């Protein structure tokens, strides 16, 4: 018999501060996009529509109890792996196989995996006593490795790493032993040269360019040099909204997508960047705060991993456009112009809201 108060669905109960943080970041993104798109209202409108869809998904997900997500988890994971496998055979994209075309919708199955993988790891670990044992951790690594490998062979190294990281964050939050992590890190360092041989030539070029962009200032190094010039010339106070010359004069490529932070930094200066980073930091902190109040370990692990993955997206993009990391195609969450990734991202925050709505009220 179901308890009297059992409800499959309920009216969304969302964390208002987190929602405000997300909306603020999205609004800043729209302002930057309006400038970066040379004040093209059509581009901004498309982005608004995507954000609308994303926030709708957020609200929808927030009304689904974490228990249901947990029940669906294995199927989501299996579907994700299956679709990823299909992309390898029939996928589309510029020189890569990332996209699946369903006639109506065209999307990257790797987007599903961004949510499905941490869900799967959390699902696997939630019923086991934590911290996980060595064998369990090994199985988790295998769960992570399969989708990662497929995405890597699409090839999309950036997404592969980010997806993998989201799974490993669950393992970390579940209490993976520090010595195991240390040993793995050491092993990784040793394996780095090996990775070099596994990389595609274009990826190696990106690394070379990263190490010395001035080597080929008009070719591979162009993006990163112009990006740094854009941010640097903005100074502390910026050139003012719509006054950035680097993007408006087309020196800065990909100014609406991966490099939008440089447009923003040029026009709003260091203080603008500091404000945006504060908002991001607030979102991450608030998300982790929600994760801590999760009703069960599935909720906690999944919410925590989503929060940390969000942080990684921000950090990787910001480090990339400021020349601290090689150029990997990672958009700036909520700000970059882009399609399905916004929906996935806000879907993830929907899960966080769901966790918030079903938190433990006992522990205060």
């Amino acid at each position, binding site marked *: 018999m179901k308890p009297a108060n059992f409800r499959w669905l309920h009216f969304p109960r969302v964390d208002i501060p987190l929602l405000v943080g997300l909306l603020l970041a999205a609004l800043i993104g729209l302002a930057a996009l309006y400038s970066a798109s040379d004040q093209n209202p059509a581009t901004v409108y498309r982005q608004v529509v995507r954000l609308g869809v994303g926030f709708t998904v957020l609200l929808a997900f927030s009304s689904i109890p974490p228990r249901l997500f947990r029940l669906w988890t294995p199927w989501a994971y299996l579907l994700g792996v299956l679709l990823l496998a299909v992309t390898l055979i029939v996928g589309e994209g510029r020189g890569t196989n990332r996209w699946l075309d369903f006639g109506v919708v065209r999307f990257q199955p790797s987007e599903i995996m961004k949510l499905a993988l941490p869900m799967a790891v959390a699902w696997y670990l939630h019923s*086991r006593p934590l911290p996980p044992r060595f064998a369990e951790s090994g199985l988790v690594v295998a769960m992570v490795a399969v989708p990662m490998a497929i995405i890597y062979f699409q090839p999309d190294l950036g997404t592969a790493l980010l997806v993998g990281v989201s799974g490993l964050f669950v393992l970390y939050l579940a209490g993976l032993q520090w010595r195991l992590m240390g040993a793995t890190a050491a092993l990784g360092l040793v394996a780095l040269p090996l990775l070099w041989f596994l990389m595609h030539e274009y990826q190696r070029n990106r690394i070379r360019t990263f190490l010395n962009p001035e080597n080929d200032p008009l070719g591979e190094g162009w993006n990163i040099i112009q990006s*740094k010039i854009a941010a*640097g010339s903005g100074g502390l106070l910026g050139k003012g909204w719509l006054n950035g010359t680097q993007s408006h004069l*087309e020196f800065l490529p990909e100014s609406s997508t991966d490099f939008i932070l440089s447009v923003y*930094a040029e026009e709003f200066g*260091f203080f603008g960047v500091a404000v945006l980073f504060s908002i991001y930091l607030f979102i991450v902190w608030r998300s982790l705060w929600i994760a*801590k109040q999760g009703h069960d370990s599935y909720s*906690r692990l999944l919410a925590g991993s989503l929060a940390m993955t969000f942080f990684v997206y921000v*950090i990787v993009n910001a480090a990339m456009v400021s020349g*601290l990391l090689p150029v990997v195609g990672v958009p700036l969450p909520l700000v970059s112009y882009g399609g399905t990734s916004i929906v996935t991202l806000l879907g993830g925050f929907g899960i966080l809201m769901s966790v918030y709505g079903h938190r433990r009220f006992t522990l205060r």
Partner: protein
Amino acid sequence: MNRAHRHVLKDQRLEAELFSRRVLVALVVILAVFLVLLGRYLQLQWLQHDDLSARSDRNRIRLQAVNPNRGLIYDRNGRLLATNVPAYRLELTPERVEDIGGTLEELAGLLDITDVHIQRFEQRRDQYRRFQGVPLRFLLSEQEVARFAVNRHRFPGVEIVPYLTRQYPYDELFTHVLGYVGRIDADDLSVLDGDNYRAATHVGKIGVEQYRESVLHGISGIEQVETNAEGRAVRTVSRNNPKPGRDLMLSLDIDVQRTAWTALGDSAGAVVAVDPRNGDILAFVSKPSFDANLFVNGVSQQAYDEILADAGRPLFNRALKGAYEPGSTFKPFVALAGLESGVMQHDQRVFSSGRFTLPNSERPYRDWQRGGHGWVDVRGALEQSVNTYFYQMALELGIDAMHQYLSQFGFGLASGVDLSSESAGILPSREWKRRTHNQIWFPGETVIAGIGQGANVVTPLQLAAATATLAAQGMRYRPRLVTATRESGSGDFQSLPPVSLPSVPIADEANWQAVYAGMIAVVHGQRGTAKGISENVGYTVAGKTGTAQLFGLREGEVYEEEQVAAHLRHNALFIAFAPAEAPTIAVAVVAEHSGAGSTVAAPIARAVLDAWLLDDAQ
């Protein structure tokens, strides 16, 4: 449902604490990473701001020279002789064109671009930097501009550039005095100030355009333009405006000029009119001429060939460089030389028998009238152009005294007019003959020099200037074209004072009056050689006819008699000034191969005098 669940009991509280610890560690790391990133942006936007900001400006700011607008040229009444009109040219920037050969080929399929254009383009390329647009075609038609605009996307690095092109509204009428501007070539570059001509495409080649280049050109400006990543200028950031060239006002009068041009008819020749009061050149005609507009944007080979093939040699500036024997137009000057130096009195008579011989010589020097003119004084000698009178006078004067006196009128010397490449003519002397021919002087040469023949050579400009000096009783001014200049766009012209030259000294004014009387008699006297032009003349004209056997050959050229019919082997000349009492115009006319001065040249002079004197403005 789960094995682990059955065997081991989960401790929810411990797990929650473990999770909280892990989150705390994560938060610390996250905060640290954010701070590192913030530090990175502080480094870029604060510490490296100056450097990166400069690079941003370098990215977008390019300096480019701005060509000043060329000064306009007006006639004495403020009517435009040379102006600037908008036009379009096609430019190709080598740096931005990957396959120049292929692009040129494709462009040729679209616009009128011939091998000659491409050839000139290749020559020009060396003079431009790689990022500068090199002109390929000038004066694009509206259709061509439209056709290119549609296809523009196919031609990155090729642009249509609006510019001002020089235009001469009177086509060929003023070419020999105004000259024209033409495209800067390698020779020009070696003498021009590179900074001031960085954006210039044209420079004055001949005439006033060349002589007054520095005034007309102005001072080049500098513009900071913002360029996009392609290098295309999208916005002007700041601009140091060029200083336009000054406008010039010339002494020329369009109506007088056109009258002279028309009056010359089909004859080749020259007409120069000068104001005796200040040296202002009122008309400066050399015929045939050519359309100056042809040369501004590069003359086509065909048009140039036609000009070169023209037997009348339109490129030759007869007024400035034509070498003509003055003939009898020299007589008033010789008369003054004789009278003023005292070898003859103005009322002294000489008998003309029609035949004059030197002592100890049988060779006869003739009068033009068979049987001679009888007893004549200086007035009659000028009226009827009596050779014997001047044979006698020259002989008594001697060539060196004659040379000395006549050079005071500017004969044998460049007039100093504000045009380049002027010829000096020849005023012979013993010294001159020894220097140029290494020969001694013969008395017979003195005799024919008295009637303006022999070695004497004048340019029409020289003859007009000397006539003006004669008209002004020895007051001499440097002939000039530019009388005033003004800052472009401002209303007021600033006049330049006339330049006076050492005047001809007067020994006895009666001598001058006698010569004037003789010249007036030429037109108004019963037996005047040009009395045909006195009909209905509303003022007094002083004139002198001349008919010379040589014609406008440059020094050293040979006259091929077979080419020219006998009656055309004479140049008709006429000098005149009017009104004789207070002259405001002096004119010299040379009409080549046309016959006698009295019948051909004098009417041309009359037309010019009328145009000047009967004009309301005067």
